[in-house]
């Protein structure tokens, strides 16, 4: 218990924290465009929904190579990519019992309502964002996803934090919260 308290920095830094910036979300950004990946990361930071720790991949297959369910809290994936497209990647993740709970946000230029429905039905994505997007659109659409991630973390930690000794070392912001939680 002490280990959890001292290594989990996100809530321990402020037990009464309610703002989403109190969480560092480990996000994987998958897009074949390097510029697009930069844009998504910059926009997420501007949206101030949370602190982010990013992992990048240029294709679905590269993302699967880098993917570790214990180290990723949220996935942003493009639809149209070479080798493995975003739908195939999302279906792959959804087929993994140890990873199927991870929220997947599709960020794509496919603007049709039929495509959007297809992504929800076939790939069970959590959220659909159409390019080009604004920071405000990201806040509206990604905000609830981040809030759900935060909600999953907060309940089991809150009682433990209340019991923390006053002399507990100051929290240090690093790593992802699911790993620390599971530790």
């Amino acid at each position, binding site marked *: 218990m002490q280990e959890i308290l001292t290594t989990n920095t996100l809530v321990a830094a402020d037990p009464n924290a309610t703002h989403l910036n109190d969480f560092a979300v480990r996000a994987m950004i998958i897009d*074949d*465009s*390097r*510029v*697009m990946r*930069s*844009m998504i990361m*910059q926009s997420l930071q501007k949206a101030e929904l949370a602190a982010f720790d990013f992992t990048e991949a240029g294709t679905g297959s590269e993302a699967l190579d880098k993917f570790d369910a214990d180290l990723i809290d949220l996935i942003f994936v493009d639809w*149209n*990519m*070479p080798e493995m497209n975003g739908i195939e990647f999302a279906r792959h993740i959804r087929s993994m019992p140890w990873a199927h709970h991870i929220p997947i946000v599709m960020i*794509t*230029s*496919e*603007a*049709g*309502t*039929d*495509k959007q429905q297809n992504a929800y039905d076939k790939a069970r994505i959590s959220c659909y964002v*159409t*390019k*080009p997007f604004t920071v405000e659109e990201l806040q509206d659409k990604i905000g609830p996803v981040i809030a759900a991630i935060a909600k999953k973390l907060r309940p089991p930690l809150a009682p433990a934090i209340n019991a923390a000794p006053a002399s507990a070392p100051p929290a240090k912001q690093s790593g992802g919260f699911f790993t620390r939680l599971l530790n």
Partner: protein
Amino acid sequence: MYHDISLHSTHNADMPLGESPVPAVLCEQTEKAVVEALSKICLSDVVTEETYTGSEHREKVVGMISFVGDLIWTMDLILPHDSAEAIAQKFAGFDIPYESQDMGDVVGEVVNVIAGVLCGNLHSVGIRSQMSLPTVTRGNAFELMLPDNLVAREFYFSTFEDDFCVRITSMR
């Protein structure tokens, strides 16, 4: 306003405007999608034009994408140097030099966004379509060499910085 290809094309030059076999719905929806997508990217009005200075031998970057479905066609986004840099800056939020590798990346994304809007608009009028991955070419003095069974149309636009052109090529 759209225009049959006249430069460097042996197949459309003599065809009167309005008699081109390029489906009218494709012309209308392409124009609409370009204005809709690029106005959002540039955060300023994109308007249709009668002429296009890029038809001169200026340096340009061309994003190309193909479509299949109820119709089969390709779309080229042709951006002269200044338009390319201006639109890339607006899209990415930071400067992207024309000569850089990232310029290809951005133009590919921009033509992808237009194509996505176009597919969505076509779906709303009952036409199914699916788009390919984009490819991008940079250079000048491109020559369009159409096979006999294809026809092309060009659409001219201007934005805050410069003008640009979109070309669609479809089956006769």
